[in-house]
């Protein structure tokens, strides 16, 4: 049973998620829902399980109990369809140190399965890496590598974004640009789930908040 997906009525639903690792309870009976145009902000201190929750929502980790569905279908049964619409950026950037910026971006673009909605140059400009097309990854700082990863949000825009601490390592100007992009994304009917352990000014964004931790 698959609802036709236009950018208007997509939904990610998680029900009764539980996760423990070796007797340490990290998530207990957690449920959440995100719909088109909504931004879910997950906050909590270090070690509260934010990253674990995001990884479970992506399908990189499996919850002990509970169910996750995308547009009415369990993600386990429609994995590749779900991934077509997913962009996940975690702590690890996925940037290879032996490839240049442009090669890295092309790689991300190729495996995303989505058409490019923007060209690479303007995306680089947006993240402030204009002069760095041919720099190999190892010459770039962590913050710069994160920005390469974030450029995916400009180039292959998928419906569902799951971002773990997207503002980490960025300067104020970039953070603002990113927030603008988030609002744009939500207005277009996209879904966004993000975490941060800092409290970010989200007044511009129409967001739901979940707090994790004790």
């Amino acid at each position, binding site marked *: 049973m698959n609802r036709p997906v236009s950018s208007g009525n997509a939904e990610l639903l998680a029900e009764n998620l539980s996760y423990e*690792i*070796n*007797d340490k309870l990290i998530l207990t009976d957690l449920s959440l829902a995100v719909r088109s145009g909504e931004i879910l902000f997950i906050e909590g201190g270090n070690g509260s399980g934010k990253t674990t929750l995001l990884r479970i929502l992506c399908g990189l980790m499996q919850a*002990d109990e509970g169910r996750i569905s995308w547009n009415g279908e369990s993600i386990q049964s429609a994995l590749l369809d779900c991934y077509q619409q997913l962009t996940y950026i975690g702590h690890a950037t996925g940037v290879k140190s032996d490839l240049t910026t442009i090669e890295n971006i092309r790689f991300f673009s190729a495996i995303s399965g989505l058409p490019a909605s923007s060209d690479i140059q303007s995306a680089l400009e947006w993240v402030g890496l204009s002069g760095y097309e041919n720099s190999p990854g190892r010459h770039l700082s962590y913050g710069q590598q994160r920005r390469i990863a974030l450029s995916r949000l400009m180039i292959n825009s998928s419906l569902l974004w799951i971002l773990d601490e997207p503002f980490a390592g960025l300067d104020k100007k970039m953070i603002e640009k990113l927030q603008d992009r988030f609002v744009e994304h939500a207005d277009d009917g996209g879904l966004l789930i993000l975490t941060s352990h800092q409290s970010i000014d989200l007044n511009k964004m129409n967001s739901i908040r979940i707090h994790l931790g004790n």
Partner: protein
Amino acid sequence: MSKVDKLWLWFHRMASPAYFYNIAGRLLPWIAVATIILMLVGSVGGLVYAPADYQQGDGFRIIYVHVPSAWMSMFVYMVMAVNSAIFLIWHIKLSDIVARSSAVIGASFTFLALVTGSIWGKPMWGTWWIWDARLTSELILLFLYLGYIGLRSAIDDRRVAGRAAGILALVGAINIPIIHYSVVWWNTLHQPASVSKLDNPSIELSMLIPLLSMALAFKLFYLFIVLVNSRSELLEQEKRSQWVKELVTSQ
């Protein structure tokens, strides 16, 4: 309900921790008794009543431990692999517990088979080891077991360790026939025309009974150990659940 549904329901009931715990607990004393009886029959039959081999004398009697051990080492690996598959496909936690309990005892059986094979060989060929097909296969099987145990213990998260080791067990299970065939083939190339000395000679009835008896005894022993281990693992893993709390308070 159709028959298939009934079977599925029974299967799920069996796999439910509380139910399994109770049933296993009730069966244990019976299994223990049966094991002891069969072991006695096998040992006495093998040591006293069965004829000594005309060529190899009384040392030959170790076959009553060696052959069942070797059979068990293979059998336990298959059980481990099947349970790993069940765990990976249907996520039934009990299967993972059974697989884990089986690994160590399977490795022990393999080791036992190797040691008894070696002891058997010493008086006959004067060496402690020989590269014949069965011993070499058992050695490789031991490595497969050790790899499984090693992988399990290297991963902290119990469940993930079960999944990783489960994949390994399945890959190993697919490979075992291939490995066995290649080792046998390799062995026939380098062995002189005579039959492998550790092959089963023609079996008379008085030898067959103790042999089968020991084999069955070993199987029940394995079952006993697995049930005991599984029960304690279950208590450990499910300690937060209702039935365990009730169990503890009623003691």
